[in-house]
């Protein structure tokens, strides 16, 4: 994997990465991808991909009703920066 590819994946994953870290990821990702390439050995024609480990279960639905009481103050107690019940982030629109 090229350094540019590592930087591109890091960008997609929203991870800061300094130049010095890139070779380490090049090496470990290459070794992981080579390891998982063993999957190619398996005969998987006509095999249904398995997204859920229990057979026959369907996604459960619930009535569209408000069930939670307003607890935003409790939840926002963990926020790094809040004002007027809003989460603050750096300016997005100039």
């Amino acid at each position, binding site marked *: 994997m090229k350094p540019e590819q*590592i930087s591109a*994946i*890091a*960008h*997609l*994953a*929203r*991870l*800061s*990465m300094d130049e010095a870290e890139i070779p380490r*990821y090049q090496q*470990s*990702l290459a*070794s*992981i*991808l080579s*390891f*998982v*390439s*063993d*999957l*190619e*050995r*398996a005969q*998987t024609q006509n*095999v*249904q*991909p*398995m*997204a*859920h*480990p*229990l*057979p026959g*279960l369907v*996604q*459960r639905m*619930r009535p569209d009703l408000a069930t939670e009481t307003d*607890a935003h103050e*409790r*939840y*926002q*107690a*963990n*926020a*790094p*920066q809040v004002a007027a019940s809003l*989460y603050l*982030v*750096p*300016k*997005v629109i100039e």
Partner: protein
Amino acid sequence: MSLHTKSLAQLAAGLRAREFSSVELTRTLLERIEAHQEQLNALITVTAPSAMQAAAVADGVLARGGGGPLTGIPLVHKDIFCTEGVRTTCASRMLDNFVAPYDATVVAKLKAEGMIMLGKTNMDEFAMGSSNETSFYGPVRNPWNPQLVPGGSSGGSAAVVAARLAPFATATDTGGSIRQPAALCGVTGFKPTYGRVSRYGMIAFASSLDQGGTLTASAADAALVLRAMAGFDPRDSTSVDRAVPDYVAALELPLAGMKIGLLKEFFEKGLDPDNERCVRDALAVYEKLGATLVEVSLPNLGLSVPAYYVVAPAECSSNLARFDGVRFGHRAKEPKDLMDLYKRSRGEGFGAEVKRRIMTGTYVLSAGYYDAYYLKAQKVRRLIANEFDQAFAQVDVVMGPTTPTPAFELGSKTSDPITMYLNDIYTIGANLAGLPAMSIPCGFVQNLPVGLQLIGRHFAEERLLSAAHAYQRETDWHTRVPAGYE
């Protein structure tokens, strides 16, 4: 017999007979934690004042003749479970300052039973690791030998139970994170069927694999707490709506006539000969008890680790997207714009292994690679699940080793991720197929415990617990306590 070595049933009986109070029991265990924490580093947070208060309340309930079989008994929670008003870190710098605003369903259920939380246990960061060395708070040490790892990711939970600092620790298992540390620390680890225990408030790693479970000294103890933890939860979309059997009553299910499948692939290359000897001795005990051994084969089982290291990182990269420095968790200082805020908060907040998995997951899900990796892995997952189905058409329980070797030295496997990943070679299959599985102590190699793994059909918790209980009535491996912790 000292308080700290009693079984849960003995503790319940003692509390009810007023032989000792919950306050005395709680104080005893808190003193043990204080005495051993520096050596083991098994806990991230100790909640002594609230534990003492809750114990006093429990004593009041018991004095009035109220409460249930777990009232007044202490436990510890893996720090992946949200605990209202108590710091919940997932062993990550990202959540170092996070105080959970609500209880996980598991936490709420055990609290409602009157159990006393002593603290939160150390673990691999976001449950990603097999040695507890990826924790932001430093590694946990194995009570059997402090130079060795306790296993992971539930290493703190396993070490606490092994050192008899608490009779029960909650834990989670995505690829072996309950069973592997149970094996390396010489305790009983139980991973229920996927969907049996609610995931609500359990910080998500890989949602199609994650399952909460127990670490206890014995299968009888596991049955008691699992009965309280399990059950349908409308707040978890994959929770299964199915009645919870009486796991304690099921312990006495007869063993005679049970067919045990020996998984051929579990006994091939890579298995330490001494580990194999302990496992084979355990199987001989089962034969003596009237079970029949049958060899079964899962030809694609060898692909379970590669399939897992596509599926789990893919799901982790999605689940961990929520940690962005905006609503909770670590935020980088003086971000120059929103992108910088996201990237540096995540870059600083996550440790090396977590970032490696997010990177792997992002790559396998990225445009052009999805079919080759994620879809292929999901198909292989189906093949492995089908092979387990075929095996269970012939046998009641599959048995084999939990790990290839006993506990290994701190730092010995951290340089190469694949070496570390292969620790879970025997445990991952049960997660991919969603099957219940457990590890029980079955002997020692050079004074280090070895685990026997039992895997059952979906929702065959009773069969597994009774099989483990039958073995533990014949043997005393599960009662051994490491030197210095007696």
